């Protein structure tokens, strides 16, 4: 079928009008339906403010490693020390620089640098603490983000949109806990277990622990909590009857750098 210039332009014009009209018709009849919608499912766990209590008297190194491994598998976290294919091998110095950390171990003196005491028990000073994003209630990372790619959900979880992040790394400078990691290169050759239900990341974006927001919305507890044999407790800190609140009532707990006013929501029972 021959299409001359005039017919072509006419049909283009027609389709354009139809297209625009179609959009407006949709907007008129079912407003807001075209835009992607986000509605919490029925089975989702709900809270006014999620928080976590880690009982270090129960958290031995083996348990901690199990928690970390659970997180790694579920969130497709790369391991630069162990590439999928040996041709991607990098020297350990680079692997350390590029490391993606959601939940990891730090000795007390690094996890709580301001609380280190000269004559404290050696065992505590070198004890490995589980650290992760504190999902602060007053998060400086959210404050500095120039694109709202990182934001705080209504239930307090600090989220990152991997598709909006421009990779300026202002949030990494702002985080006083070193809880944010940047993808310096393509992470995929280093992702050993692929969970198809969670996105892998591209080079050039920032990521961090998200308190397993995607699991909470399905009615599941965070993966680390599930793997922790009761050493980690997750719940609503604004609900006076929650398990988290009971623990805070019954134990003396500490938080990382509370004096900075970021209101970290991860509490530690140390004795």
């Amino acid at each position, binding site marked *: 079928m021959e299409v001359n210039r005039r017919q072509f332009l006419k049909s283009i014009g027609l389709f354009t009008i139809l297209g625009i009209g179609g959009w407006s018709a949709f907007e008129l009849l079912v407003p807001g339906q075209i835009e992607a919608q986000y509605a919490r499912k029925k089975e989702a766990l709900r809270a006014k403010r999620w928080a976590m209590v880690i009982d270090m008297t129960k958290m031995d190194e083996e348990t901690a490693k199990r928690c970390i491994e659970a997180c790694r598998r579920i969130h497709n976290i790369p391991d630069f020390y162990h590439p999928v294919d040996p041709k991607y091998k990098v020297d350990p110095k680079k692997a350390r620089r590029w490391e993606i950390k959601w939940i990891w171990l730090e000795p007390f003196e690094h996890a709580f640098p301001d609380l280190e005491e000269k004559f404290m028990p050696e065992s505590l000073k070198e004890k490995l603490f589980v650290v992760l994003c504190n999902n602060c209630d007053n998060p400086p990372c959210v404050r*500095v*983000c*120039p694109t709202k790619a990182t934001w705080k959900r209504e239930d307090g979880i600090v989220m990152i949109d991997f598709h909006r992040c*421009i*990779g300026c*790394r202002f949030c*990494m400078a702002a*985080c006083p806990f070193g809880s944010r990691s940047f993808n310096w290169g393509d992470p995929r050759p280093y992702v050993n277990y692929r969970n198809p239900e969670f996105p892998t990341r591209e080079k*050039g*974006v920032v990521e961090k622990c998200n308190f397993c927001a995607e699991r909470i919305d399905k009615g599941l507890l965070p993966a680390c909590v599930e793997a922790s044999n009761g050493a980690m407790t997750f719940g609503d800190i604004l609900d006076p009857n929650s398990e988290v609140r009971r623990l805070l009532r019954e134990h003396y707990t500490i938080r990382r750098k509370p004096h900075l006013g970021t209101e970290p929501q991860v509490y530690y029972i140390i004795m």
Partner: protein
Amino acid sequence: MFEKALVGSKRYWTWVAFLLALTGIGAILYLWQLKVGLKITGMGRDVSWGFYIGNFTYLVGIAAGGVMVALPFYLHNYKAFGRIVVLGEFMAVAAVIMCLSFIIVDLGKPMRAFNVLFHPTPNSILFWDMVVLNVYLLLNIFVGWNALQAERNDVPPPTWVKVLAVFSVAWAPLIHIVTAFIYQGLPGRHYWLTAIMAPRFLASAFTSGPALLLVIALIIKRYTKFDPGEVAIQTIGKIVTYCIIINVAFFFFEVFTSFYSQIPGHMQHFKYLFFGLEGHGIMAPLMWISIIGMITASILLVIPGIRRNETTLALCCILVVISTWLDKGPGLMAGGFIPNPLHEIVEYWPTLPEALITLGVWALGFLILTVLYKIAISVHEEIEA
């Protein structure tokens, strides 16, 4: 007027070709970085901003520093700066373009840079920095270009140009204050978390900007018929002198607060920078060169004989440019990120590709500077002929 940039001596074209070559090398390496990511740099999770952002910060100062010639001219009708003021404006143009380029090359996802406009976020200082830098760039392009055109046509510049010029004088400090705010409002980065960061930035800007301008003006004077004038050079020399002294003073205010209070978090970054910590100290030689350089320049510039002699004045200004660059570029980054928030020490050094991309951005800036200065100087030569 642009045609003036298209004719020139062999020396002009050789210089342009040289800068183009450096820009080209940087551009090719940047394409590589775009393909494989920022892993080709020396940055990492602990030092997450490096050479790119360090140079960005320094160049914001150079851009703002141009105001030190614009202010006396536009606000106080200081006629001696009549010839050099356009050079200050064009230097600001080149410097801001370098700044924006450094931001772009530092982004993990540069193709998404416009997200800053699509999702404007007033609580982010980076958003405001984008605003103030771009406005300052436009102001200087309009003012510089139109003032030069008016001069060429032997008419006074239109009123709107004068209004914009005055506005631009008020705007200049803003670009550096906002840039300082990027750093000084972050909890847990003690080296940056200080109210004197913005004043320190301004002092360093108002010494390094005029110093660089003076050196370039003297080079131009040697190779062309353009003469900024003896009085202008001497006045700039005095500005550089006052501001480098203020800059050194601000540095010691900072040192005093940290070390007299004896607060470990405040002292540790200075200790790392100047003495090293736990056996890590690659920054120490650079930091000592920087502070000794700034102090030496302050002392030498106070001596009238040295300041009045154009050669020694130029040498002092070169010292100012280098020592303030070390302080505000590499020093600011290393001091802010080392030790990291967990009090671990991971050092940083730029890689070769990173250094060449940086050099490429500088070459691009100097290319723009060369073309703009070529136009300005040709116009002046034309008027005088």
